[in-house]
Structure formats: C-alpha cells, structure tokens
C-alpha cells in the first residue's frame, strides 16, 4: 500500500519540551502533518494508542524506554508487530541515532526507506539541540568567567592599590605561569579573600 509520506504518523516521546518542539517543527516543515508529542510520564499506553503511530522516537535518556519495549511485546492495543527500526544490519544508522541521543521504533511495518528521511531529520534536530545547549552553556560560562575576573580584579585593586589594567595583567601572568585558566586564578583569589576577610 503506497501511502504518501505526509500520511506517516510520528510520535515523539521526550521530557524536554523545547527539544520535542524543535523536532516537531522540523518534521512539520518537511511535510509530515501527523506528529504527536508526549512529554508527560503517565499513562503512556493510552497516549500511544491514541496517537496510533507508524514510528516512535524516544529520547535515549528517557526511563520509559523499558516501558515502551514491554508494551510493544505484550499490548493488545498496539498489536502490530514492532521492531526497533535500527536492526543489526544498520549499525551506522544506529550509531548515528545513539550518538544523537535518540532511539527509534517502527510500528505497522513501516518501510525502511520511508523511515530513513524521518530518522535523519530527528537525528539532525537532536544534534542541533545538543549544539544549541552546548553553545548556551559556553556562553553562560564565558559570562560567569568574566564576572569572576571582574570581581578578582576589584579585590587586587583594593588590596594592592593598583589600576585595573595592572590587576588584569597580574591575573593573566599568574595564569600563564601556573598553566591555569584566568577564571581559575580569579576564583582562587576570591576564595582566599573570602577566607581572609572572614566574610560568608
């Protein structure tokens, strides 16, 4: 039966709402109109029966993976045979999915070639989300580092009666000599000054 791709029903199970909506959006843009997202814990069975999916994506870090696999084994409501799409013959595909942090299950005997573009999309969106999260983390860290350095400069200026540039130079030289990051040196200065001044 040659259904059109746009008819394929896709279910995404992910606790992370932001990531789930990023995937959903990507799939809709690619012309998949039937995308359901589950972000609640319970009851999974009813939601899955209602979604009646051809393919299920679940976050690899989701504890409900064991529940899902068990349901596929026993549930009368989801009685069509299910296999993890990624069978042993598709090691590269599995690798890519697991590296991205997503696991895929095929329902209704959906054809592999029809699944591939959907899986590719899910993988790329999962990866994009990870990159975004890393980027956010780095940005935050850079901001935090800058705050640390600013505060350490303040301590040095007050303690040694030097200017801002000099205080920064001192930090940088110390970091180079000790082979540490400037932020780490700043942190030690702040820790020491807290201890020495008895502030909480």
């Amino acid at each position, binding site marked *: 039966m040659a259904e059109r791709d746009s008819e394929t029903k896709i279910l995404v199970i992910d606790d992370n709402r932001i990531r789930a909506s990023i995937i959903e959006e990507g799939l809709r843009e690619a012309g998949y109109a039937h995308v359901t997202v589950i972000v609640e814990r*319970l009851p999974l069975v009813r939601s899955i029966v209602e979604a009646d999916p051809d393919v299920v994506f679940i976050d690899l870090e*989701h*504890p409900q993976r064991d529940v899902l696999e*068990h349901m596929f084994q*026993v549930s009368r409501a989801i009685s069509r045979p299910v296999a993890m799409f990624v069978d042993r013959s598709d090691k590269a595909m599995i690798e890519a999915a697991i590296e991205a942090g997503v696991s895929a299950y095929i329902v209704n005997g959906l054809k592999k070639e029809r699944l591939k573009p959907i899986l590719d999309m899910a993988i790329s969106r999962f990866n994009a989300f990870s990159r975004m999260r890393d980027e956010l983390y780095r940005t935050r860290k850079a901001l935090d580092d800058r705050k640390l350095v600013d505060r350490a400069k303040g301590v040095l200026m007050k303690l040694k009666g030097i200017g801002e540039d000099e205080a920064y130079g001192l930090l940088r030289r110390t970091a180079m000599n000790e082979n540490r990051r400037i932020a780490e040196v700043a942190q030690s200065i702040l820790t020491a000054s807290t201890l020495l001044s008895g502030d909480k």
Partner: protein
Amino acid sequence: MGEPEKPFAIRAGFIPLLDAAILIIAKIRGFAEEEGIELTLIREASWASIRDRLALGHFDVAHMLAPMPIAASLGLTPFGGSVITPMCMGLGGNAVTVSNAVWHGMNMAGADNSGDPMTMAVALRSVVESRKASAKPPLTFAVVHPYSSHNYELRYWLAAAGIDPRVDIGLTVVPPPYMADALAGGHIDGYCVGEPWNSAAVVAGVGHIVTTTTAIWRSSPEKVLGMRSDWADQNPEAAAALLRAMHRASLWCDSPKNTQEMVELLSTPSYLDVAQSTLMAGLTGRIALGAGQPQLVPEFRSFARRAATFPWISHGLWFFSQMVRWGQLELTPATLETVRRCIRPDLYRKALGPLGVALPNASSKVEGALTMETPVATANGRLFLGPDGFFDGLVFDPDRIEDYVAAFAIRGPSAISD
C-alpha cells in the same frame, strides 16, 4: 589484538540503584585504580539503553539485571549480541509492595507483618478471588523489565499460591523511580522492585511491603556484571583486574562499619542522587514493612558474604527455566548450551583464585538443597553458603530442567494484556 598497557581503560554503564554499589565503590574508593584500571562510569536511565550501548561498544561492561545477558545471548532482545556474566553483583535487595487498598484486603484475609511469602500469597489470592467474584478488573502488578529477576520471582511467588500471573492479574513495566507514584496514582496495585523504591512507598504512606525476594528464593541473585564476550576475549587482563577490583569493593561494601560512608558516597548527584535516609533501609535490612517500627529483615542483602559475587551457572539456568516456563522461548539443546556458556565462573576463578579467595569447588548447585548456612568444599579456605531454595519447598536441579518446568501446574505463554 594485544592488550593496551596499564592503565586499563574500562567503560561501564550503570543504572542508579543500590545494587550498582560494588561497581561504583570500585571506582570512588580507589579499588579500580589499585588494579591499574581507569574506570569510567556512565549513568543510564533505562535497561534498554544499557543493552544498546553495550552492544554498540560504547560500554565494555555494564550493571545488568541477572537475566539480561542470558536474554541477549539467546537473541530475545533486539540488538543484544553475545554478553557474558563473569560475576554477580550481590544477593537479594528486592521486595514486593502493594497499595494500601490491597493491603487492607490482605489483612482481612489473614496477612500479618511476618513477611512470610506463603501467608502473604494466600492472603493475596483471597483478594484476587473476591475481585473476580464481584466482577472487578484484575489487579495490575509492575516489574522493572520483562527479563528481570523481579518478573520471574514475582510470577513464581504468585503461581505457587495458585494465582495465575497470565490471567488472574495484569503485569506491566514501570521504571523503579516511578513505582511509588504509579501506586499512589492508582495506575498499578502492586510491584516488585529493588530498594529504595519499596521503602519509598511506605515512607510516602501509599503502600505496604508484603515480602522480599530473598524470602521467595533464598540467596537469590539480583544484578550481575554483564560483559561483551568479544571484549572479554580481547582483554583478559583488564577483565580479571576489574573482577579483582569489584571483589575488593564487595568486601568493603559488606562491612557494616563502612555503611555510613557508603551511603554518603552513593547518595551524591553523580551516582544515585537520592536522600541518604532513603538508602539506609535497603543497606541495613532494617525495613519498615508498613507505617511503624522498622524490623530487621533477615538475609535481605549481601554484597560479599556467602559467595554473593560468585556467578552460579545454576542461577542462570533457573532464570532460563522460568523463561521456558512462561513461553518466552523453547528448551532445546542449543538454547540450553547458549545459557550455560554465558555464565562464566571460570573467569571468576581465574581472576580471584590467585588472591586466595575461598571459591566453591562446584560451579552449579541444586537450588534448595541447603536449608541452613552450610560450610562447603573449597580449594582454599572456609566458605559458607546458603540457605538457598524456594519458599514452597520445591527444589531446582539444574540437570533436570525439563522435568522441573513440566511439573508446574501454571505455565505457558501469557494471555496478552495491556
């Protein structure tokens, strides 16, 4: 393929449960390092992910449910591959918990706070029967995984009292941390899980502990170290070093003087991430079955005592017998041989023999032959085993699996349930 020079880099997956202790302690108390191992622990949220990542080679070894390496080696799980069990990660640690409503019904039918499996199962049977008589839907019990010791032990317990787990109740899967919530929400009526997730329901006032799996099957195994067999073949030195490190960790964990430190180490966010007080009950065996005074549950858990880490072939074969019993696969010379080959006491002996550890001379035993703690024959030193065996008095002879399975009145594939 030659082995890498020390340090041996080993990657291990684990699920944040109390029974991952000897693997976690091997790392954080330095036992792994002393054996020249650089041990990387990776926390996972599901057994499915543990299985996939072990099969893919992301992990070399993993904390696993005892039946998992068997199921994987038999090809019962998607994407398993050949996984061996060179070491057990301890005995016991599980219990069965029911909702307050079910407990009330059991109480009316004569259940007490003894934790005695037969008394409890008979009381539960009256609840099941009275529900049937008044046309109420069957009770639903949860386990953590279809290929788990919990699943086989819970079914064994029910069936021994005449409750048919295929038709009289529903069985479902719930992740351990969600069990108490699912019970409180009325999604399930009872469950079998490891600590601290039984005590969690009692503390929350939503359930009652009725019995323990070490009362159902004494000295029963729970988690094992699963190892990719190709990795074990290519890295014999690293594998042996890991078994030595985990053995030393198991002695440390079993010593009561270390319990407080162990709770502190395991409760941290990178490992189990639960309150220290919650872990205590499952470690000390001082468990409150219901609201009120905790009692000391005998033989609740052991990490080292009574050869707790020895990978008995008979343990693996009992799980296999139950897989056959419930129609998960057929008993053939080939499946039997696969299971026998996946439990590897030979690797355990090779690694620990040189340390002078007391090892049993046998690799398989008749489960139920020991009714009390018994000294057994060893090549070096004194070793006490047991008591072992099942609460209904049946004996499992691993050389007679076919007869054993055939003798069960309740057996066969499950009626499909939701």
